[in-house]
C-alpha cells in the first residue's frame, strides 16, 4: 500500500516538474527575443512552410545578438520517423552555431514546425516571430512580439530619419551597447565594376559619414565614417549627384571632373586612391 502511494506521489511530482519546466522555457524564449534588435533569419526556413528537410539534422532558424555580448542561435532538429523535432538555443561561436552543444531546449516533441515573421498593426509595422507546430487540432502557435526589431524604410517626403519599428517612436528595455565604426574607416565600398565590396554599415558610424566621388555607380560612391569639410583644399570633393551629369563614363574620378564641387579657386583632381579631391 505504502509503495503504491509513494509511486503515485513520485509520478505526480515528476509530471508537475516536467510541465513547469516546459512553461518556464517557453517564457524564456519570449523574454530572450522580444528585446533583441539584431536578428538574422535563415531565409531558407522563414515563411517557407514546414521545416523538415534534411531529416534528423540540426538546422539554424535564426541568430541574434542581444547587445550584451550574448550571441545565440535558435536551431531545430528536424523530425525523422518517430523521432520528433527539438528546438533549442545554442551559443554563436566564431560566426557558427554550436549545434552539438547542450544548449537550452525550448520545445521538444515537435511535429510540423513552421517559422514565420508576421506583420501586424497599421501598415504591417509590428513584427512578430510566430512558431507554429503540431498537427490537425493539436496545432499550436507561439507568438513573440519583436519589440526592438526594425525594418529599413523606403523614405518619402515628410518622413523622419527613423526606420520602421514595432512602434517607431519607442525602444524597450535597458540601453544596450551598439557596435560603432570609428572615423576614417570605409562603411560602404564599391569597386570599378560597381560591385559592393563592403556592405553598407554607415548607420554604425560614430559621427556620421561622408561620400566620395569615385566610380559611376547607381548607389553612389564609397562612403567613409567621420566628418570632413568636403570641397576644401586636399579634401574630397563634395558629390554633386550622378543623374545630373547624365554621364555614361565608368569612373567619375578624373582631373577636372564636374562630379564634385570644390571651393572657388580650387579644381577637382583624381588622387592615387581613385578618389576625387580638391586641389
Amino acid at each position, binding site marked *: 500500500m505504502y509503495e503504491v502511494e509513494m509511486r503515485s*506521489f513520485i509520478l505526480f*511530482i515528476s509530471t508537475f516538474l516536467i510541465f513547469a519546466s516546459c*512553461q518556464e522555457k517557453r517564457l524564456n524564449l519570449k523574454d530572450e527575443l522580444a528585446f533583441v534588435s539584431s536578428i538574422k533569419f535563415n531565409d531558407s526556413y522563414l515563411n517557407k512552410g514546414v521545416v523538415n528537410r534534411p531529416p534528423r539534422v540540426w538546422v539554424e532558424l535564426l541568430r541574434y545578438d542581444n547587445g550584451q555580448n550574448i550571441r545565440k542561435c535558435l536551431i531545430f532538429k528536424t523530425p525523422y520517423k518517430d523521432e520528433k523535432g527539438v528546438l533549442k538555443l545554442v551559443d554563436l561561436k566564431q560566426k557558427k552555431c554550436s549545434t552539438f552543444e547542450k544548449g537550452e531546449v525550448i520545445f521538444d516533441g515537435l511535429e510540423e514546425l513552421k517559422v514565420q515573421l508576421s506583420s501586424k498593426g497599421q501598415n504591417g509595422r509590428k513584427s512578430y516571430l510566430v512558431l507554429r507546430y503540431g498537427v490537425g487540432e493539436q496545432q499550436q502557435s507561439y507568438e513573440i512580439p519583436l*519589440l526592438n526589431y526594425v525594418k529599413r524604410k523606403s523614405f518619402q517626403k515628410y518622413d*523622419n530619419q527613423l526606420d520602421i519599428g514595432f*512602434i517607431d*517612436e519607442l525602444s524597450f528595455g535597458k540601453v544596450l551597447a551598439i557596435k560603432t565604426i570609428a572615423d576614417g574607416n570605409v562603411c560602404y565600398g564599391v569597386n570599378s565594376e560597381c560591385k559592393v565590396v563592403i556592405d553598407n554599415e554607415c*548607420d554604425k558610424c560614430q559621427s556620421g*559619414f561622408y561620400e566620395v566621388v569615385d566610380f559611376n555607380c547607381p548607389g553612389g560612391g564609397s562612403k567613409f565614417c567621420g566628418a570632413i569639410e568636403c570641397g576644401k583644399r586636399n579634401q574630397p570633393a563634395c558629390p554633386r549627384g550622378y543623374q545630373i551629369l547624365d554621364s555614361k563614363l565608368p569612373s567619375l574620378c578624373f582631373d577636372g571632373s564636374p562630379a564634385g564641387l570644390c571651393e572657388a579657386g580650387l579644381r577637382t583632381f583624381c588622387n592615387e586612391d581613385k578618389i576625387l579631391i580638391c586641389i
Partner: protein
Amino acid sequence: MKKTPILIIVLILTALVGYYFYNPSYFIEKKAKKTSNVDFLAEVGDELAYIWKNADLAGGKECFVHTEEFVDDSFYQCNPDFISCLLDRGLLKVTHQGQRLRLYSNIDGYHYVQRPTHREFLFQLIYGKDNVFEVRFKDTCREVYVPQRFYPFLLNNRDVTVEWDNFDKNIFVDKYLVRNWEALLWAKKVKNNEVLAKLKGRLPYEYVTNLNPQEMKSYCNFQGKKILSARLLDAISIHPEDIVNPKSRLFRAPYYPWSRKNSETILFKIQKNLSVENLESEKENLCHQVYSQDCLNRKLRHYTTWNSSWLGAYDIMGGPLEYVYNEINPRENIKLSSVYFPWKSKVHRTGIRGYWDGEGLSKVNFDFGKFNSINKESDFQVAFRCMRLR
C-alpha cells in the same frame, strides 16, 4: 499506519501547489508580470507613443509650462521634459487589459542616450506596486527627409546657379533651428563647461545663438550629423518649379519659400512697393512667417508651424541669422533673412547670404555685402541647424 495521514496531507499540498503551477494561463500571467513585461509593453506602447509624438492629453495642458504667447504647442512634441512633468504629476495613464493604469517614474528624470541615427530618452517607469519597465522615447519629431530630385544651388547672391541631385541618397535636415534645451542636453552629456556657461539662464525653447562654428560642429557631429550646407538650405527653402516631377530641370528659384509665384506673395509686393490690401491685419501672419525688423513690437513665437517650407522644415526666414557650411563660396556662410532687416529689404529672399568670421558677434565680424547699412553694432544672433546622411 501513522505514515498514511502524513502522506495524504503531503499529497493534497502537492496537488494544490501543482494546480497553482499547472494552470497554464495563471502561470503565464503570473510569471509574465514578475519576469517579463513583453505583453504589457506590446499592448500599451502605442498609447505611450501617441502621447509622446503628439503631446496630446485630450486637451489637458497642465504640463504646457511656457506661455502660449512665446511658444507653440509643437514644442512639447517629443519633449522629454514634458513626459517627465506628466509622470511627476501622475498624469500619464495607459490602458492595460481594459483598466486605466497610472504610470510614475522610478528614477529621477530621464537619461539622454545618443544613437548613431537618433537620440532617445530613457525612462524607468513603474505601475502598481512593483511593476517596473524601461522605455526609450525616440526623437522622431525633429528631422525631415529631403526628397530625391534635382535642385538649384544659388551662389553670388543668386547670380550663379549650380545644379545638383540627391538621387539614391537619403538626406535629412533638422526641421527647426537648434534650441537651448537641445544644446544643453549635449553640453551636459559631453561635459562641455564653456558651452554650459554660455547657455546658463537661457530659455529652453529659444534659439541657440551664441555658439562658435566649432561648437556648432561638435554639437552636430555628436549626433552623427553635420552643419547644414548652403546647398541644402537652398534645397529646403526654394520651392521647386515643378514639385510633382523630381526630374524636372527647371531651376528658376522663386524668391520665397511658400510659393513658386513671386507675385502671389505679400513680401514681394512690399519689396516692390506695390499696394497690399489689409496690410495691418496681414502683418500678424507675416511676422509668424518672416520675423523681421517690422515685428519687433510683437513677440516671436517659437516652434510656430506657420513658416513651413515646401518639404516641412521651419524657421526658414526671419529670426536670427543662420550659419551654414558653404562648399563653394565660404564668404556666403550666413543666411541674411533675419530680424535685423525690414521686410522691404531684399535679404528676405532665398539664396541671399553674407559672411560671418565666427570670431565674435559684433558688426565687425560680419560682411553683409550690399546690405551693410545696418544700425546695430553688437550682439548679433547666429543660429544653426544640422543635416544627416543615411
